[in-house]
C-alpha cells in the first residue's frame, strides 16, 4: 500500500520544430527553480545539452513549434518513438501558430514570389540537404499522438513549472486561472 514510484531521475528531452524558441526561453524563466528541477530530471536530447538524438528510454518529451517540413516530421517521430509522454508546448505546437499563417496560400506560389530575382527568373533552393516543406503546416497532434497540451504564447515560466511539477508528482497537470496567458 502506498508504494511510491521508484526514485530515479526522469529523462526529459526537448526540441523546437517550427517555433521561435520563445517557449524554450520562457522555460528558462523558471530561474533558480531549474536547480530543483535537475534534482528530479536528467536532460536528454535538448538544446540545453546539445545531445543530437533521443535515448530510447526517455520519459518525457517537450516539443515547441508545429510541423512545417520533412525534418520536423522525422524529429517528431523520433520523439514519439522514444518518449513515454509527449507534451505539445505553446501555441504553434498546439495550433500551428504563426507559421501556419501560410496555409491559406499555395506553397508553390509563396516560393515563386520569395525566390523571384528581377530579370533572372525563379531559383528555388534545391538540395537533398534541405528538408522539403510540407504543403501545409500542421499542429503536432495531427501527425502523432500527443498526451498533454501546455498552452500559451509562450506559456509563462510559472505555467511551465506548475505543469512539470504536477506531471512529475503524478498529478494530471492543470494550469487554471492566471497561468494561461496569450500576450
Amino acid at each position, binding site marked *: 500500500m502506498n508504494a511510491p514510484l521508484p526514485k530515479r531521475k526522469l529523462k526529459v528531452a526537448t526540441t523546437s520544430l517550427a517555433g521561435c524558441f520563445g517557449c524554450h526561453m520562457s522555460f528558462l524563466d523558471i530561474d533558480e527553480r531549474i536547480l530543483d528541477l535537475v534534482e528530479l530530471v536528467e536532460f536528454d536530447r535538448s538544446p540545453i545539452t546539445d545531445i543530437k538524438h533521443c535515448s530510447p528510454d526517455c520519459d518525457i518529451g517537450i516539443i515547441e513549434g508545429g510541423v512545417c517540413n520533412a525534418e520536423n516530421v522525422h524529429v517528431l517521430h523520433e520523439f514519439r518513438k522514444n518518449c513515454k509522454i509527449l507534451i505539445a508546448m505553446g501555441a504553434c505546437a498546439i495550433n500551428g501558430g504563426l507559421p501556419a499563417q501560410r496555409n491559406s496560400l499555395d506553397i508553390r506560389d509563396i516560393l515563386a514570389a520569395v525566390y523571384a530575382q528581377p530579370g533572372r527568373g525563379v531559383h*528555388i533552393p534545391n538540395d537533398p540537404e534541405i528538408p522539403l516543406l510540407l*504543403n501545409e503546416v500542421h499542429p503536432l497532434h495531427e501527425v502523432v499522438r500527443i498526451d498533454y497540451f501546455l498552452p500559451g504564447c509562450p506559456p509563462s515560466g510559472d505555467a511551465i513549472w506548475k505543469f512539470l511539477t504536477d506531471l512529475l508528482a503524478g498529478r494530471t497537470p492543470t494550469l487554471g486561472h492566471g497561468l494561461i496567458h496569450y500576450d
Partner: protein
Amino acid sequence: MPNGNSNGSGDSAVVEAALLRHGGDGTRLMQILREIQEQTGWLSPDILTRVAEGTRLPRGRIEGVAGFYHFFHTEPLGRYRVLWSDNITDRMAGNADLMARMCKKLWLKPGRVSEDGLVSVDTTSCTGLCDQGPALLVNYRPVTRMTAERVDQIVELIRHQTPLAEWPAEFFTVEDNIRRKDALLGADFQPGDALKALKSPQEVLDAVKESGLRGRGGAGFSTGQKWDFCRAALGSGANPAHYVVCNADEGEPGTFKDRVLLSSYADMVFEGMTVSGYVIGAKKGLVYLRGEYRYLLEPLNAVLEKRRAAKLLGQSILGRTGFDFDIEIHMGAGAYVCGEETALLESLEGKRGVPRKRPPFPVTSGYLGQPTAVNNVETLASAALITAKGAAWYKAIGTPKSAGTKILSISGDCERPGIYEYPYGVKVSQVLADCGARDTQACQIAGASGLCVAPNEFGRRIAFEDIPTGGSFMVFDNTRDMFQVARNFAHFFVHESCGFCTPCRVGTTLLANAMDKIDEGHGGEYDINDIWRVIRTLKTASHCGLGQTAGNCVADTLQKFRPSYELRLNVRDFEPAFDLDKALSKMREVTGRDDPGAHFHIAHRKSRAGLGTKAGDPS
C-alpha cells in the same frame, strides 16, 4: 416565380411593400425578409441596406439575421433552387445517387449555381417527409418519392424554365399516411367543441392539470403547471401582455407528425391555442412554422379565416365578452436550433436563433419579454381534446406517469412508414410489428439527439418514464451500417449548431472530423478515446440542449454497435487523418526531387473493402 437576377426598380417596390405591410417593425424582420426574398429570389446588399433603414435597425443586425438562416440567401442561387433532404432515411432510399444524376444532367456541382443563373442543387437537413422520401424542395415546395425518372422529368422542366405552377401536381403530393389512430387522431372533434365546453379559466386549468398532460416536444414538462406559471406572471413595460406560442418548428430528423396535424387537424391545434390563451389571459397566439412547411402557410391561413368567420377567433369569441384571441403564423427559415423554445422566441422577435439563458423562463419572460406559454403542436391539440372531453377520460389512457397518447413518425426499414398513434406505454417491439419492420437491428427514437435502441431493449416502452420522444422513430434493418447512421447525425449537428458557444461550435466539428477520419480508414483506438472526450465536453459545457445531446447517437452506437467502429480501426496507435507522403507533393513538384529524403515511407492501410463508405449502403 422568383427572379434570380435582381432588378433594381422592381426590387425596391417589393421591399417598400413588405416594409409597409409590417409597419417597419424590426421584430417582424424574419417575415419581412422572407416575403421580400419570395419575390426577388435573394437578399442583395441593397435590399439589406433598405430594410435596415426601413426598420431603423443597424445594418449589421439585418445581415446577421440574413446570414444565420439556411433559407435566406445573400447570394443569388438561381431561379430554381433545389434542396435534397439529407436525413439518413433519405440516404437509405438512395438520395445520393439521385442527386448525383440530377447534377450530372444539369452540368452542375452541388452547392454551385449554373453559369446562366438558372438553377442550383444542394442538400438540406431533414424536411419532414421521411415516410415518402427521397424528398426535395424546389423553391421551398416539397417534391416527394423521387425516382430516377422523376429526376429526369424535373431536369427537363427546369431546362425549359417551366414555372412551378405548371409542373405536374402529383410531384407535390404529400400524403398523411396515418396508419394507426387512437384517442387524438380518431377523436370525433368538431371545430368549437372545446370552446363551447369552456368553464372558468381556473376550471379549465385545473382540468388540464388533472389530465396529467405533459409536453409532447420530448421534455415532458407538465402543461398545466406551465400554464399556471404563465397565468400567474405579470406582463411588464409599456405594453404588458401574455402570449401563446405554438412550436411548429418540427426539425428533429425523422419527425413529421406536426406536418400531419397541421395538414389535417389544424382546427384542433388552433383550438388548443385558443384554450391556452383563455387560461393564461393572452389575446394573441403565434405559430412558428418551420420554413420547410412553407407550403402549409396558405391552407393554415384559410383555416384561420374560417375560424374567424365562425366566431372561434377574434373579438368576443362565441359571444363571450372579453374573450378576444387571434392567431398569426410566422415562418421560420431553416434552422433546427429554433425548435429550442428560447431560440424560437429570439427568431419570432426577428433575431438570430441563439438560445437564451434560462432563467428567466418563457413563462415569465418570453416573447417581447412578456409571459409566454410555448407548447408543441401535439400538446395543444391534446389540450383542446381534454377541454372538450374531460380530464378523467384522458387520464385513463396511457400509464400513470404518462397520460394520453403519443403520435410516432415512423420511417426507415419497414413496410408501412407513416403516422402511428399509441397510448403511452407501448413497447418498441409492438410498434415494430405494427409497421412491418423485419430483421431490425436498431431504432433511433427521438431523432438525432435521441436514443439508439438495440434489439435487446425492444421490450422497453415509449413513455416519459422509459423512452421519452418527440415522435421520431427511425428503423434500421440488418443491412444497415450503424456507424454511417451516427456519422450522418454527427454532420447534421455541425450544420445546425448555431455557433454561439465554443463547446458546441467546435465540439460538433471535432466529432464529425473524428467520424470521417475513422470512415476513411485512418482511425485508431486513440480516436475513440478522443471521441469520448469530445462527447463529455459537449454534454457538460454546451449552452443549450443542441450541443448537450449532439454526441448521443455516437455514444449510443459506440456502446451498442461497437464492432461497426472497430472493423474500421487501424491497429496502429495513431495515424494522421491525412497522407503524410502526399503532404510533400507540391515541393517534389517544384524541386523535381524524388530521392528517399523527399518521401515518407509509411504504409497507409486503406479502409477495408466490403465496408460501405456511403451511408445506407449494406455493409
